[in-house]
């Protein structure tokens, strides 16, 4: 009897524990319309009832860049590898913001969606994936803003030199998305049990920014700390991006490969943890 039940062609089998590596990506693909609708929802709802609307996408990085230029450039006089300060900080801000947003928003996946997750089933991974995509839209808007300023500075004869490394940009984006997603879903899985982590995240991301060459070039780091800063998987990404578009700094393919490997590992750990938590998280929240 038990044997015959096993043999029937059930389309759904629910057991207490799933296989750790059964990430059910096909199911996620079936729900792709939902992912896109989440993206649309986030995009449409964020700036409803604001006067400037989507212009905030541009205003935010601009204000940050101006602040950085004044404080770190003019007051603290940090070096910028000889690049125009405004462009230097803008490039750092635009690229860092994508990673930052991906991480902080995905890290709230379970806590922010308790109500929804408690009432209906869909692959939970749809939420973090939709966050990556909606942040990608923001990133492109800000990236275009960066390109416009780049062109402006080039025309006015600044010493910037975009080169073929720029072709690597999509890979850099994937790496940042992966790192943000990986860290984000690990944290979101752990916050179902320990709410403390939510506060740690905001603070941690801020600290991580100072440990990444966003407001200073990697070359400004004393030799004895060079290895330390290269352990940070975001370092090669920011440095490569800057070298590709501005022509100053450095590109080390080996460091990039390290970052890429780091990203793969963190995404896998995150996915396994997330998969594990999503089955029973409603009991602990």
């Amino acid at each position, binding site marked *: 009897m038990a044997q015959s039940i096993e043999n029937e062609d059930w389309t759904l089998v629910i057991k207490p524990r*799933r296989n750790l590596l059964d990430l059910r990506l096909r199911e996620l693909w079936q729900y792709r319309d939902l992912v896109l609708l989440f993206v649309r929802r986030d995009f449409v709802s964020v700036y409803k009832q604001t006067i400037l609307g989507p212009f905030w996408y541009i205003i935010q990085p601009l204000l940050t860049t101006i602040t950085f230029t004044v404080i770190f450039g003019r007051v603290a006089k940090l070096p910028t590898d000889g690049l125009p300060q405004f462009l230097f900080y803008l490039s750092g801000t635009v690229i860092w913001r994508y990673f930052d947003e991906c991480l902080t928003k995905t890290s709230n996946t379970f806590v922010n969606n308790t109500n929804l997750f408690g009432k209906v089933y869909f692959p939970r991974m749809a939420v973090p994936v939709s966050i990556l995509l909606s942040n990608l839209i923001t990133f492109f808007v800000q990236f275009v803003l960066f390109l416009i300023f780049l062109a402006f500075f080039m025309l006015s004869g600044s010493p910037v030199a975009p080169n073929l490394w720029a072709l690597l940009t999509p890979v850099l984006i994937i790496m940042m998305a992966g790192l943000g997603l990986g860290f984000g879903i690990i944290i979101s899985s752990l916050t179902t049990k320990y709410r403390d982590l939510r506060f740690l995240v905001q603070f941690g991301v801020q600290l991580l920014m100072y440990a990444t060459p966003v407001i200073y070039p990697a070359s400004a780091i004393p030799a004895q700390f060079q290895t330390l800063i290269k352990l940070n998987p975001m370092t090669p990404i920011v440095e490569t991006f800057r070298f590709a578009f501005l022509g100053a700094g450095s590109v080390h393919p080996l460091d990039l490969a390290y970052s890429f490997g780091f990203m793969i590992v963190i995404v896998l750990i995150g996915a396994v943890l997330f998969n594990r938590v999503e089955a029973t998280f409603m009991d602990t929240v």
Partner: protein
Amino acid sequence: MATVISVENVSKAYRLGLIDARTLSNEIRVALARMRGKPNPLLKVDQEHLANREGEIIWALRDVSFKVEQGEVLGIIGRNGSGKSTLLKILSRITAPTSGTLRAKGRIASLLEVGTGFHPDLTGRENVYLNGAILGMNRDEVSRKFEEIVDFSGVETFIDTPVKRYSSGMYVRLAFSVAAHLEPEILILDEVLAVGDADFQKKCLKKMAEVAGEGRTVLFVSHNMTAVVQLCRNAVLLDNGTLIEMGQVDKVIQRYISNNTETQISINTSLSGNDQFSITDAYLLNTAGDRIQSPISGSEIRLVLEYESRDTLLNSTAMVTIYNFHNTPIAHLNSKASFGSATISAGKGKLICRIPKVPLPYTSYHVGAAITSGDRQVYHSSNILNFSVAASKFYPNSYMPPASYSLVLVENEWIFQGKNE
């Protein structure tokens, strides 16, 4: 018929003390207190008795097994805390079982709430698409049914207005409308019929019956026994996490109601008599011959009086009177109406009164009885039996008049005639 859902020994345990939202600092405080042998500092004073139970396991479901055939409409009933919701949550994959396996064939859509995921800033149109996708429809499916969904909800005029400007009624109607147009092979419903005004509820009930009629499998959880009787052929009854009854809906509902009213109902409160004649037992039977304590209005029942008589009683009449809870006599049932008078034979026997269609609205009743022989009363009791009515199939639709206007239900037919006809 093929089995489409198979629930095999499913159990779900919750650990006490793990339910509270934790922070790392609280965890450390608890650990420190435990090391020093003090009670858990997070427990409130009135929870002290729970302190020893930390880590103890509460079984919300225990070894529940059943199968659902294709096209079956299965009611799941039980008191609050009986494990209904946990079972639904496991079936709809919101949480995983602690042990046991659950198998299903075909797409499952569960409606534990209407309007899940509605975003107040989005328009009705945008929310229909979003909600549809959350419930498992893809974009094309929603587009195909969009007109129908909007029609059914009756909010056409406001479809491009953000739903936060909707009245709560409009909101619920639109939300239900999306849900009602899902086309899964298996539909799980939880009390969603309890929303909206009476008109809309009726519309929903009709829609549900339609869905069931199309041969899809429906699991329906509700406290509304009338809706359960109308929609479901079979039901399972959960109590304290275990499945205690499953089968035909009437039978299961009887069991449910008798379980719940045990404390109020005292059967045979004053069976009395003398050494010549006594009623030894009084009870109701359904058509299947099972003893019941809550007949379904509109169904057939038999009222049975078991007696013991020393002598043969000639020219006898048996009569019972049904009183409602106000002690108002509702109906007098006399054996004279069937066959004049008859003989009650000596020894043990039964007096059986068949009621082909119980015409009683929802409330509790008691029954008085009297037996006469010639012009002598040999037995009298003002209360030999209590029962209550909580479900009805008296009228073909869900209609049940308010108890304050209707002491009994009367069959009726209406015709509306215009002047020109």
